[in-house]
């Protein structure tokens, strides 16, 4: 509840515990507590335990580490207690207090640096893919680092995104310039999402800039590694601030990266300087941005896509508190029937279910979603967040795409991968 850099009017996340009226609504929404009794639930961990914590005292916590950070609790809370953020800061205090052993810290720090890991393996993607799919390697990783051997590690899908982007001729934009803040996964593992996004934005008349970027820092934040997250966020703000000052929209296709820039990093790290706030104010989820274009009548020419598409809005997306812009944009696609999952969390929660001790919790949390996807029986499922897509595919075998690929396809822009395969029979 401390830090001096917070401007007047910005409420520290812990102060919101005063809003709690103990009503237990959050308890009904938490997907973790019902599947494991290692986690006593959001009311207990957030507003209740919060009254027993103080920065100047030792951390009394243990079970809060089992909070997946999915924010289902925040979503249903009628009084605005920021439970998931309170929990994230409590975990950071545990980390700072040395509550985790060296192996757990090492593992968490590995998982929390997806871009560095991706960069390391990028020179030999084939080898890394083989190793990551090779049972003995995974067994070793589990023994050494407690990274569950069953968890859905991503695989390289070709040359890195930036190499493709740099290889293209610059395209001028009569509609303006857009900054594309790429996710670590887009850079290495789902480069097709990045290509579809760039093609889509260029199709709409924008010039696309892909600036230097570090990982947004969310994996570090959700592992309680705050000092490193602070460095990452600062580097990103420094890289983006000139664009924000120029009034350019910064769009992202990863709902967690954009949420981190908008709110999570500033609020969890108490970084509320002008630059950070200006970058936040200019950061948009891709569909939030497209919905704005649609409202101006600038998103037209959608072609019919006669298909039924199961869609899961990820937790990090709902945490933007915008409703579900992707659904609204996809509504504009003729003949497309989008079926929302209507269930909570997929269970992966970023790096959570990669951990040996949490893998099964993640799978149990995700079960209702997996059942939904299986029931739908569609060739692809859509979801805005990368690790959620991997988890859904892991839990169901159904390939998962980003909704922006759907919009791109509807606008006649080239798409690749599972969506292209799914659309082929339609044409």
């Amino acid at each position: 509840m401390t830090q001096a850099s917070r401007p007047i009017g910005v409420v520290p996340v812990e102060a919101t515990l005063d809003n709690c009226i103990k009503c237990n609504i959050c308890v009904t929404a938490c997907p973790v507590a019902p599947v494991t009794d290692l986690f006593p639930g959001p009311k207990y961990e957030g507003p209740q335990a919060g009254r027993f914590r103080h920065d100047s005292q030792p951390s009394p916590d243990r079970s809060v580490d089992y909070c997946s950070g999915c924010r289902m609790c925040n979503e249903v809370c009628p009084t605005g207690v920021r439970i998931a953020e309170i929990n994230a800061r409590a975990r950071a205090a545990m980390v700072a207090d040395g509550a985790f052993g060296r192996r757990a810290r090492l593992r968490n720090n590995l998982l929390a640096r997806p871009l560095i890991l991706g960069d390391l393996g990028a020179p030999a993607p084939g080898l890394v893919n083989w190793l990551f799919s090779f049972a003995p390697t995974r067994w070793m990783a589990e023994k050494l680092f407690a990274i569950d051997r069953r968890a859905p590690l991503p695989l390289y899908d070709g040359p890195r995104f930036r190499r493709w982007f740099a290889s293209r001729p610059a395209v001028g934009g009569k509609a303006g310039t857009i900054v594309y803040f790429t996710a670590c996964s887009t850079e290495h593992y789902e480069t097709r999402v990045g290509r579809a996004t760039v093609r889509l934005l260029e199709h709409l008349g924008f010039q696309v800039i892909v600036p230097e970027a570090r990982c947004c820092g969310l994996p570090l934040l959700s592992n309680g590694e705050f000092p490193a997250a602070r460095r990452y966020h600062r580097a990103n703000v420094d890289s983006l601030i000139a664009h924000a000052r120029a009034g350019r929209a910064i769009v992202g296709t990863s709902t967690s990266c954009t949420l981190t820039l908008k709110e999570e990093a500033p609020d969890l790290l108490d970084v509320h300087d002008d630059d950070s706030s200006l970058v936040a104010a200019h950061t948009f989820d891709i569909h939030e941005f497209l919905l704005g274009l649609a409202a101006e009548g600038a998103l037209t020419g959608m072609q019919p896509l006669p298909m039924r598409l199961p869609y899961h809005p990820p937790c990090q997306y709902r945490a933007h508190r915008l409703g579900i812009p992707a659904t609204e944009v996809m509504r504009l696609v003729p003949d497309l029937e989008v079926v929302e999952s209507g269930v909570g969390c997929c269970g992966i929660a970023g790096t959570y279910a990669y951990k040996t001790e949490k893998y099964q919790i993640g799978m149990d949390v995700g079960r209702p979603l997996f059942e939904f996807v299986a029931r739908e029986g569609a060739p692809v499922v859509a979801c805005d967040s990368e690790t959620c897509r991997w988890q859904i595919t892991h839990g169901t075998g159904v390939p998962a795409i980003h909704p922006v690929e759907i919009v791109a396809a509807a606008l006649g822009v080239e798409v690749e991968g599972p969506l292209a395969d799914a659309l082929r029979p339609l044409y």
Partner: protein
Amino acid sequence: MRKHETEVLVVGGGATGTGVLRDLAMRGFDATLVEQRDLTHGTTGRFHGLLHSGGRYVVKDPEAAVECIEENRVLRRIMPHCIEDTSGFFVVTPWDDEDFIPDFLAGCRAAGIPTAEIPVAEALRREPLLNPGISHCFEVPDASADAFLATQATVESARQHGATAFPYHEVRTLIRSGDRVVGARCRDLVGGEDVVITADLVINATGAWAGRIAASVGIDFVVQAGKGTMVAINHRMLNTVVNRCKMPADGDIIVPIRTVAVIGTTDEGVPDPERFSVEPWEVQLMLEEGEKLVPGISGMRVLRAWAGVRPLYQEEAAEDTRDVTRAYALLDHAARDGVEGFLTITGGKWGTFRQMAEVTVDSACRKLGVDRACRTHLEELPDRRNREGYHWLGERLARIEKEEDYGDLVCECELATRADVVRAIHEGDARTIDDVRRDVRLGMGPCQGGWCLPRVAGLLHEVRRSPVVDANVALREFLQERWKGLLPVVWGRQLHQARLDDLIFRSLLHVGALPGPASSPLGPVMYERPTDETTVEAAPTRTPHHATEPVVAGVDRDVVVVGGGLGGLSAAWHATLAGASTVVVTKGLGSLIWHTGCVDVLGYLAGFDEPVESPAAALDRLPADHPYAIVGRDALSRAIAGFRTLTEDGGYPLEGSLESNHLLPTALGAARPTCLAPSTMTAGDLRRRDPMLIVGLEGFSDLYPRMVAHNLNALGIPARGVSIDVPTVRRRRFVTATILASFFEREAFRSEVIDALARTGENASRIGFPAVLGLDRAPEVVADLSQRLGAEVFEIPTLPPSVPGIRLQNILRRAIGARGGKVLDNVEAVGIDAAGQSGISVITEAAARRQRFRGHSVVLATGGILGGGIFGSSDGRLSETVAGIEVSDVGSRLDWFGRRVGEYHPVFQAGVETSSDLRPRAGSPHPNVFVAGGLLAGADPIREGSLEGIALATGYAAGAAAASVATSRVAS
């Protein structure tokens, strides 16, 4: 009449009396203590918890300062587990005179108080919320102390040395024989008998009551009662005691103690130690002064305010009680008044109680002609629970975490477990819930007993096995006691909480309808209603998350509904039925999840205690401004019929009609009227008199079956209660209502339940369970259990969360979705923009920005005070939170509430007044704004039992009207 003989009788069970008792016992006297209520009931249980370093008194009262620091050292040694080593700051704020500093430092030196100046930057690093404008900071060994725990440990030590303590023994008069006091005539309030205690020596340690006790034997002296008011803030924004560095004055200290921070204190002479009130000006003063130490503190959540009375002794009455010495006084009435066998020890501070006891017992030794040395400073106090030195803020949480006891929590705010409560009842011989509170620290957090009270009442009944009315009275008395502390500070979030607690106790549990009297002789004394008319200045209320946000396009629909409770969802459903495209934005889930899952249409008429038998017949007697009168009986009938059809189609039929109310048992066993109830509940109807069995589950703390059964017996229903031990539940460390509901959907779990019940050998033709019998398939679950048990199975709604409420919510949400409507959670409306050309927009809050939901009409269904749609600020203003629409006038904040918790509270009838088409009468931003549900003025739906009926009827009318406006506009 009972007789009791003792060598020394101590009157008064506060810190001083118990300290004297211990000292006597340790010096080998046969000693007995009597206390009129529970130990610490008086001033000891009502101070801010400061263990003085003495710094406060070094200039004003150097003698007291020396006593303080001496005892500070002793208490840290003998009872560290009762003390938190917070340390203390004396800070010079811009309002304080720096000329005081040399006097302060010289005084500290003279008194022997270790004092160090620390740089302001260092002070701010340690306490970041401290006023950055302070110029100096001096650190002293202040600490905070848990006086409840300390007193218990002191008495425990005394008992170990052979002493006896009788709580709930009220001294009616001392007994005087000639020139000698020889004992006391007492009333045992629990046993209901008179007790005569004879003693060689009587020690009067009754603090502010000392003059009154002495007067009973014709001895006259003045102990002024100096009332000190304190205000507790919900969380510890400080971890160090912070004092103003100046002469002692009102509101000059903030003490972090346990989970709260206490601002103290005022000092007002009062004529009677049992009759005083906490005045609004005192609360305001505490917050204003607190603001100088911690800017922003007055906008934080205030939990409660209370006052204690300091005993201030002097031979002559003083003008200002602050001028009276804080040092203590020992009166030997032989020397002073010529009466032998009688000593009075009074004055002083909590921290010097041991020293006061020492000098008193020294004097007692002389009087009794013995020479025995004091050893109370040498021997540590016993404690059963903790031997790890000072306590600390996180201690309870760390213990719960280590032992994974979180499934056993009774008080969730203060983390007190079932084992703690049972121990307090067994070992502490707790009679009332207030006794339990003092023993385990419970019911003192944000909800002020909302969740733990029914649980403690249930445990009290189960453990003590006393008549159920005792538990009922204990519950009602504690509610009243908490209400007293809340009254001066009910605004903001505490008003919201008070309304939710009102829903729980008044409606869901129906505490007022439980058998037994409203109060007992064991109840606390000391209560007066505030009299002062001063209103408290507005504290900062709602702080926007980000100061300036851009607004981005959201969703365009015909109708935008604000609020996801029953009113909002039914408005949205009816709007979609009328063909309007509809979106619901809701900040969080609504009150369906807090209540019974039944449809209350009208349970009580104003002025009548008896429930309404037929809502249809009683409707005519409602006033013209009642929401039912506004929308008309026809709208109500249609809404009810529509909802019945919807739930029936959803496979979850609601039974009943407007013609007659069911009378269903609550989770405490009161009879509660409701109009429509799910088929899973109706077999519990108390209009039937056939026997029933109430079944609770071990590990699920929200239903105490024997308490329910015994209360039903008092209503003439043959009922028994039994708890069953179900292996799957036992294997989990905790269960919640929703977890149990998912268990009950499994056939194997139901088999376990049936087996467990069979093991008890109990049976009846109808069997009640907590309302957790499945979520989506409840009627199937109930049918299966009924068939296999050969009985009619029914559900009893328990504390929130309400599984039956979730079922209704799911049905409505599915119905809205099926007609193309959308419900967007986590989208908080913060304004309405009616300025644009194209219709009307609801502005919502989002990460880093705001968003615009455009529509042709808007339904506001934000739920009044209960739902967060009306905010009450400390200056007594009530505001509608989305559009600032005018709220009906219910008077100033003093007029908001009745004096007793169960009375009519005008503030709960506040709302938006509308014309017959549910458009606000005044202050609406746009003609197409309609109002539905709890936000409407003209009714207190919790009190009259109309919460769901009003939501359905006005939701229906508002949804249809909004759709009609929107679609006709589209058509044109």
